[in-house]
């Protein structure tokens, strides 16, 4: 049994009390004395040359304080790319400057080219409307294949082929892969699109720049998943403000799903404006702006081939992908389709030969970057779809085909042909667990029952693995990362025995305040209610890399454990002094330091008090105080995995898909708070079902964003979703972090889309509609109907 409030307890989320009662404090809730408001003027053409911007009329408008254009930011740095990727031919990727405000050209609808700061937001908005710009519209580059085929029209004039890089992974594998394909008895080929998604966090972005003319210090309140990373980018690359003169505060943040990892131009712009005006400058994004400026996700066009023998043993896998990066390189746009995608192409399988080719392409669309899962959903979708197609072609059961090709427990640690080392896992266990959960034996009867009601029932399976707990810095450094990916924590024991834990991870919905407190409570024997988790303010917390890639517990949690271990070690020294015993004889258990084999003990609180009121304290050998910081850099990724099963009913008359049940058997390693883990899986599956059935960002041929509101961008709602059943009992604890945790934040979004699509195709085939071998997501009624009747 878990200790009350400790590891393994389904403690209710303490932060929800303030979120659910409207007492959260988000960036838009913050109002600083004397603040002015910013509004950005955004391009309404996808591609155009800026011949001139006339701000004279706008400058005369009431309340206008300043108007800035791209010209004003010409001298400051560009927003950089966090990862350098090499092309197959050894060339370095193309990396065009991404200015704070567009200069010379606008490159997507929504690209900001001017900024008005006024006394009120409405005045700023009115003045934006009064700016006249001579923007010569150029033909828009929207379709990736067309952008590559004919590069006479260029997103960036200096990049002659619209290609960022042409990446091969692993290039040395290529000959062996091709040879395996040439000799293979059977090859299954599938061309598919991983649809483009809009992240849609509940809270749109917002930023307040606050320059203090007295001290010369800058403060940025912003909606960030990683305030230190934003500070680093703004300081070292964009604005040149020394890090010690810039504080970045990300207070309560209402969701991010990746889109708030990145530094955006608006953040630099409000800082610059604040300096210019000696006043705080606030900007709050509206939902329309969010649709056309928040980094989108996915958008891959892939050809995948699977070579097998006639018994279904996987011999080789090969993919060619065009990955859309949009108009500019967002901070992690280059690693998402490569090192977070290509390296996962082995899946949970023992496929001996794998080769991945990705060409990243510039288009006149919003930048594309990591979105919940980031590369791994794209990899999983491709693999799990082609396996189902292969099973059908070979006349094999997709369930058995997967089981047959799974790695087995005796193969760990396993070095994949795409460069990862899986430390542990048990893929047969999660698949078997799924089988128990879904009543496989009753499926045929359910099919018959559905048929009696005129519906086609189908089952879809997806077995997934991800590399998360991002990431070992030395490894990613070799691969081109420009940042470290450690994390940090300070455990500050206060004199009265309560604890502040200052963490580098950032909670924007994950429930860290609850879970992290559980970990420290368990470690130090202090009630969770006496533990405060502090995050999101670079002036308080140690340098941390924030939250994304299912990393917070695996990386920052490990740093917390290390820091807590240091607290215990120091506490033992203090206790040894106070108890007049040898340090080696002190044991720490259940919140008390005792001399082994005796009843002599000091409570944690007594030790803490002594550390700050060191009257009876070994001052000659030990510093007072009880505060320890640890940085933790993981030695490997973590590899959560699982098996997802989806049952659908398809109405062949209308093409409508209804998800009847969705079942998850996951291996997240050790679990700190089962309730929160299940909630994370629910949310991820909801987003995956959204991708599979409803969501899709669409541009027309002019590069106009057609899905710019919830009128046209379909988000899943509660009644679009089934009950989602989650099990995480098949745990193989991570072997290399102290908590044995693997991460669960992205799993649902990774594993679910192929399960849904496989289920729909299974339903059609069981219903005799065998000519349909693939339908691209989202599987809207019109697409399913067209496939059935095509």
């Amino acid at each position, binding site marked *: 049994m878990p200790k009350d409030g400790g590891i393994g307890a389904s403690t209710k989320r303490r932060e929800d009390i303030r979120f659910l009662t409207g007492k959260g404090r988000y960036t838009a809730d913050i109002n600083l004395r004397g603040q002015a408001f910013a509004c950005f003027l955004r391009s309404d053409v996808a591609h155009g040359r800026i011949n001139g911007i006339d701000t004279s009329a706008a400058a005369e408008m009431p309340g206008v304080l300043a108007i800035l254009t791209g010209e004003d930011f010409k001298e400051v740095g560009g927003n950089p790319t966090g990862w350098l990727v090499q092309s197959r031919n050894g060339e370095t990727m193309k990396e065009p400057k991404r200015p704070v405000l567009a200069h010379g050209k606008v490159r997507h609808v929504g690209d900001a080219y001017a900024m008005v700061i006024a006394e009120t937001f409405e005045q700023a908005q009115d003045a934006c409307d009064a700016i006249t710009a001579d923007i010569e519209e150029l033909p828009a580059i929207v379709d990736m294949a067309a952008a590559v085929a004919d590069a006479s029209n260029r997103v960036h004039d200096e990049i002659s082929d619209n290609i960022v890089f042409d990446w091969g992974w692993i290039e040395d594998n290529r000959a062996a892969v091709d040879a395996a394909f040439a000799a293979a008895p059977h090859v299954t080929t599938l061309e598919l699109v991983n649809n483009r998604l809009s992240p849609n966090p509940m809270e749109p972005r917002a930023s307040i720049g606050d320059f203090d003319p007295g001290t010369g210090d800058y403060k940025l309140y912003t909606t960030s998943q990683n305030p230190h990373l934003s500070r680093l980018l703004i300081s070292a690359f964009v604005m040149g403000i020394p890090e010690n003169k810039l504080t970045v505060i990300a207070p309560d943040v209402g969701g991010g799903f990746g889109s708030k990892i990145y530094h955006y131009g608006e953040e630099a712009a409000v800082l610059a404006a604040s300096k210019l005006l000696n006043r705080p400058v606030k900007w709050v994004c509206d939902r329309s702006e969010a649709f056309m400026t928040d980094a989108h996700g996915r958008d891959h066009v892939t050809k995948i081939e699977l070579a097998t023998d006639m018994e279904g043993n996987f011999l080789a896998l090969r993919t060619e992908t065009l990955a859309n990066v949009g108009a500019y390189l967002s901070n992690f746009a280059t690693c998402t389709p490569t090192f977070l995608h290509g390296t996962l192409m082995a899946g949970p399988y023992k496929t001996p030969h794998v080769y991945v080719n990705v060409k990243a392409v510039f288009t006149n669309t919003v930048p594309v970057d990591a979105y919940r899962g980031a590369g791994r959903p794209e990899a999983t979708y491709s693999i799990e779809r082609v396996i189902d197609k292969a099973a059908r072609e070979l006349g094999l059961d997709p369930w058995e085909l997967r089981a047959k090709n799974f790695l087995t427990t005796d193969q760990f640690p396993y070095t994949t042909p795409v460069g990862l080392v899986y430390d542990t896992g048990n893929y047969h266990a999660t698949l078997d667990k799924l089988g128990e959960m879904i009543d496989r034996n009753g499926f045929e009867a359910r099919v018959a029952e559905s048929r009696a009601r005129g519906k086609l029932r189908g089952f879809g399976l997806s077995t997934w693995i991800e590399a998360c707990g991002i990431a070992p810095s030395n490894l990613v450094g070799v691969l081109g990362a420009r940042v470290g990916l450690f994390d940090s924590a300070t455990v500050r024991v206060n004199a009265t025995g309560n604890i502040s834990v200052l963490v580098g991870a950032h909670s924007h919905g994950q429930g860290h305040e609850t879970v992290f407190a559980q970990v420290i409570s368990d470690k130090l024997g202090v009630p969770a209610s006496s533990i405060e988790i502090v995050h999101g303010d670079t002036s308080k917390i140690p340098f941390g890399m924030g939250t994304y890639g299912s990393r917070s517990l695996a990386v920052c949690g490990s740093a917390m454990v290390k820091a807590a271990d240091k607290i215990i070690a120091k506490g033992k020294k203090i206790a040894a002094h106070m108890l007049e015993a040898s340090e080696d004889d002190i044991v720490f258990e259940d919140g008390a330091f005792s001399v082994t084999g005796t009843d002599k003990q000091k409570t944690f609180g007594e030790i803490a008090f002594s550390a700050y009121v060191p009257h009876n304290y070994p001052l000659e050998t030990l510093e007072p105080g009880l505060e320890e910081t640890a940085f933790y850099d993981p030695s490997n990724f973590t590899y959560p995995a699982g098996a997802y099963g989806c049952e659908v009913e398809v109405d062949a008359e209308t093409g409508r898909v209804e998800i009847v049940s969705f079942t998850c058997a996951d291996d997240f390693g050790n679990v700190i708070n089962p309730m929160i883990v299940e909630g994370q899986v629910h949310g991820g599956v909801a987003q995956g079902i959204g991708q599979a059935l409803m969501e899709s960002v669409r541009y027309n041929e002019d590069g106009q964003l057609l899905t710019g*509101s919830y009128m046209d961008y379909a988000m899943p709602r509660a009644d679009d979703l089934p009950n989602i059943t989650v099990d995480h009992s098949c745990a193989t604890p991570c072997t290399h972090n102290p908590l044995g945790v693997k991460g669960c934040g992205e799993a649902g979004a990774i594993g679910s889309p192929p399960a849904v699509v496989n289920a729909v195709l299974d339903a059609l085939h069981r219903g005799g509609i065998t000519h349909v071998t693939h339908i691209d997501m989202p599987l809207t009624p019109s697409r399913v109907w067209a496939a059935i009747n095509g």
Partner: protein
Amino acid sequence: MQLSDQRSIKADPATVWAAILDPEVLKACIPGCESISGNPQDGFEAVVVQKVGPVKARFTGQVTLSEMVPEEGLKITGEGKGGPAGFAKGSAQVTMAREGEGTLLTYAVDAHVGGKLAQLGSRIIDSFTRKMADQFFERFQQAVEGPEEEVELAEAEPGAEAPATEKKGWFKRIVSR
């Protein structure tokens, strides 16, 4: 979006051709047109106010006539900037053919919008475009051949001339007077 349609107009091609080149006719036919100036050779400047879904905008822009073949057809191209609402542009390829006593007017419209308007989504924009095109050619037809009999009667002012046996649109009345 693209759409095409045709209308039979009870007037000969010469009358229809004259009407289509007349700024007053254009002003009357373009839905929401506040003002128009210019001439067929140099093009027209127009101000149009329209409400598209939740977005109301005043578009200022150019209308140009090209590929003009008298009594056979022309291309009408328009481009309007709606300020914060975005922009709209489009063209209508119009062909005219004698059809008995009247004229068969065939048109193919190609319309594009940008900015906030585009984000309203294709459902709203497509239906709006269709409505605009329908209204334009409906009004054009009425301008040339006159409204339905009862409408004409209802609109007839007291003391005005007795309605002619052949109904006339206001344009036709002017040119035939």
